[in-house]
């Protein structure tokens, strides 16, 4: 799973998709995840990182993580075929 190559993400959580011209905004944890995806990290890897850092149980995190990934897919921000 990785972010489409040409997507720009700023530290303030602003996302610009140059192929569609759409802009998005992320909350801080959303920004963190997107940046990790940009580095090509796997979902499992990212989830492990986050559970260590945030006060949340595995099941809850996993649920909201995949909901978020679903939204990225919905907005067509992820590489196809994954």
């Amino acid at each position, binding site marked *: 799973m990785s972010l489409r190559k040409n997507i720009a993400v*700023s530290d*303030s959580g*602003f996302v*610009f998709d140059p192929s569609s011209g759409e*802009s998005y905004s992320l909350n801080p944890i959303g920004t963190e995840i997107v940046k990790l995806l940009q580095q090509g990290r796997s979902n499992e890897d990212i989830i492990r990182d986050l559970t260590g850092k945030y006060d949340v149980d595995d099941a809850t995190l996993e649920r909201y993580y995949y909901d978020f990934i679903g939204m990225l897919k919905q907005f067509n921000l992820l590489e196809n075929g994954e």
Partner: protein
Amino acid sequence: MSKIKLKLAATGLNNTDNPGPGVPVIRSIRESGTFSMEVVGLAYETLEPGIYMPGITDRTYMIPYPSDGVEALLERLEYIQSKEKIDVLIPNFDAELYTFMKSSDRLEKMGVRTFLPTLSQLEERHKSNLPRFGKKYDVLVPKSKDILSYQDIEKLREEFEYPLMVKGKFYDAYLAYNEEQVRMHYNKISAKWGLPVIIQEFIRGTEVNVVALGDGTGQTVGAVPMRKQYITDKGKAWGGITLDDPAMMELTRHIISKTHWRGGMELELIKTTRNELYVIEINPRIPAWVYLAVGAGQNLPEALVKLALGMEVKPFRRYDVGKMFVRYSYDMIVDLPRFEQLSTLGEVEPEKSFKSI
């Protein structure tokens, strides 16, 4: 004479093909001989052109929509006022006026002055109340009626002749030739501006307009009549010319003196073939075409600021007849980081060097 320093805040920076009055109001006051100004833009949407136009706003803050209520607005304005020291605020949208009027006392306490109509003036001239307004002040108005449901639409033919006007509470007006069209406009308008939707008799004739300013004691500070020469598909003036029409001026002075109107005003009138003047709408603020009045010799926005500051204002005596305005559109180049900053932080600072993402 040295100029007085002034920090002005204004809304209505949407200089689109359906323009808000913010940009022309700011421009008029910037050309003032009295004030040297810094301008704080207040925007509802991130793409209002006035945010990005050079020489209009010095910085811009996003503010919550009127539908979020007085508290949300005041909270935001308190924050803005803690960073800026705004002297005078000019709201420029019909839909926000109620909220700003309700807030005016608390704004005053923060040191922000306004010059707005009273709540009863606002209510009285409301489209739904126009028939009563006509009777009370002895002016001609079209017959009108509020509708709240589909059932009301079927009954319209008992009282009105087609075509008729279908209007929103704050904005939007459409001509409808049959029930089907009324239904279509009703859906569109009610979804946007809520209920009631107002049905108005269609008066045949030429539309003419007046921009005016009342000082709240019944005196007309200034007034300039205009006819639209070219109209966009949204019914907005794209070109207009000042008129010499004593009847229009008399009607304006009559309304301002009877209502003791306070603040800016736009009268929308229909002049029939028999030379009767019908009042179609009274907008409780300065219209977007106000710069024509400035060009014709009456800087009404500047006079409004003076009134807000409690300065003495002498009524304007004259204006140039036959002055024209032609609007044009113009594409600016905007760098994405400016948009990004406004979208994520809700404010754009004046002299920040934007680095590309």
